[in-house]
């Protein structure tokens, strides 16, 4: 199984992508590199990967272990993991075989939120909520926050629209003590095509879709072509929902958006009666896209909680454990206070 580790040309230690600097850096000798510099260093290797025959990759797909090229230990990975760390020497490792052929991503949005920022977001969120158990935002808990590139399908679609309907524009005005209502009825026609880009669906079943909906949206205009070095220092996963499986979901979204866009264009009318609304999806291009997220999973009171931060925008979402004892105490206090205030008020004021 072919793996890739980006190493510092100066000292040989691992190079990781640093979101805050938007550069690649070595933690040992503090050297920094741009994407172009990394690409130049690893040019020869990139060509190697491209030359690999298809059957070789398929065979290797079944393997779920690799030998760390830094310490030599055998490391077992999940069958969808494409970027990880060696368990023993913590060297960042990219399993490049799983990023080739149909699994070669087209696009990505690199991290702009680094670990410190994600931890800060988490702390702001938890400390703002007074009933979170204290042990919950301990520093050992915070260390577990993980930066992950998650696989998505992005579709660019072209839709043909043929819409007809009738609608009213109503004007109301006053003159003296009379009120006038003028109802103008219109025939509405909308024909043409709509291009909808970056229609997004998660291509991965191992994480809650709901959680990721909570940190949407990403700014699609910042997306770039996939570049492997950006995975260094982060986890990354391969899609496990295929293009064929995702198409119906994409089409459903496209129809919904098309209807919204048509409604936008006829929003001046009231009481619309649609007589014809044919939308036809003419073409769709799917892009395999990796999007960044910080994920923190934690156990409290026998229950698993998840927290996520959008790795590009910093938007966060998740569920918090609750200190029931403390909450109950405060609620009892409110009960006592309200009741006493009302009883006294009833006797003295009203």
């Amino acid at each position: 199984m072919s793996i890739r580790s980006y190493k510092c040309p100066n000292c040989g230690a691992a190079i990781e992508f640093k979101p805050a600097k938007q550069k690649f850096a070595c933690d040992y000798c503090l050297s920094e590199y741009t994407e172009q510099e990394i690409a130049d260093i690893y040019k020869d290797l990139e060509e190697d990967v491209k030359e690999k025959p298809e059957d070789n990759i398929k065979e290797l797909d079944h393997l779920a272990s690799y030998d760390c090229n830094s310490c030599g230990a055998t490391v077992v990975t999940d069958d969808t993991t494409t970027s990880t760390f060696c368990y023993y020497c913590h060297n960042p490792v990219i399993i490049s075989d799983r990023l080739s052929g149909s699994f070669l991503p087209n696009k990505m949005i690199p991290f702009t939120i680094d670990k410190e920022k994600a931890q800060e977001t988490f702390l702001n969120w938890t400390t703002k909520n007074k009933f979170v158990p204290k042990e919950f935002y301990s520093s050992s808990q915070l260390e577990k926050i993980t930066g992950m590139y998650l696989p998505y399908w992005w579709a660019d679609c072209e839709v043909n629209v043929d819409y007809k309907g009738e609608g009213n524009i109503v004007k109301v005005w006053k003159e003296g003590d009379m009120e006038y209502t003028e109802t103008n009825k219109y025939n509405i026609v909308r024909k043409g095509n709509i291009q909808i880009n970056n229609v997004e669906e998660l291509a991965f079943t191992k994480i809650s879709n709901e959680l990721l909906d909570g940190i949407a949206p990403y700014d699609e205009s910042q997306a770039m072509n996939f570049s492997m070095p950006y995975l260094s220092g982060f986890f990354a996963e391969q899609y496990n929902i295929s293009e064929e499986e995702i198409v119906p979901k994409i089409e459903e979204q496209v129809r919904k958006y098309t209807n919204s866009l048509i409604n936008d264009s006829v929003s001046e009318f009231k009481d619309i009666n649609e007589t014809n609304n044919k939308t036809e999806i003419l073409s769709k291009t799917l892009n395999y896209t990796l999007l960044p997220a910080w994920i923190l999973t934690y156990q409290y009171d026998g229950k698993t909680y998840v927290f996520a931060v959008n790795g590009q925008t910093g938007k966060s979402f998740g569920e918090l454990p609750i200190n029931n004892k403390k909450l109950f105490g405060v609620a009892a206090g409110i009960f006592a206070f309200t009741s006493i205030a009302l009883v006294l008020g009833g006797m003295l004021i009203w």
Partner: protein
Amino acid sequence: MVNINRKLVSSLIIIMMLIFVLNPIIAKGEALRVFDDAYLFTEEEIKILSEEASNISSSYDMDIIIVTTDDANGKSARDFGDDYFDNNGFGLGPNLDGILFLIDMDNREVYISTSGDGVRYLTDERSENVIEEALDSGLGEGDYYGGAMGFLSGTKKHLQMGIPSDQYSQDESVKKENSLTFMEGIMSLITGLLASAGFFFGTKSKYKMKSPVKAVNFRENSIVNFTKEDNKLIDTVLTNKKIAKPSSDSGKSTTHESASGKTHGGKGAKF
């Protein structure tokens, strides 16, 4: 001994004579109508006011009383007026019909207290009119006699007009005492329970992961290119209607209970 008896007899005679001299007012069969405890009127003015009040009183079987005071005994003008009416046994007929006009120098307030049919004649709106007339006739500028005359003429005018056809009486329903019933206690507890339960479950649900509605920038990611975008006017309908006026509440008489438990109406104003 004889001397003392003589003195006693002569003083008795003097007392008897004094009573006899003061009697004519009572002897004439006329009840007192003006009680000028604040000394705002001259004797002449009291006479005119009394006569006018008596005239109105006998024409409409309605006790018309004018009271001034410079010490309301710590009461509000309303309570003072109501109590004055009740405690002095004013009011004619079984319903104790009557209208009392009070100039309260202590509270600097003018107040009309009505009772029996007086409540029905002087609705809230009419009472306010009468008070306005009294204030306009000089009360506002310190001419108390003018104000009292204004009250009499305003009252007379409204008595002439009769009871409004849409008159109705409604108690302002004030609680007499600040006591707490058992039900109110229970209600306080329930409200307290609701408030705390609201907080408890509200906080609980706030901490729960809500099913998010996925925010999508599809508008920024789309280009709409209509080759045909047509709105053709096919029909116009014009309708009109009269704007309804808000209904008035001119027939309402608000009533309340005085300390003696009798029902009074009335209105007042500061001056």
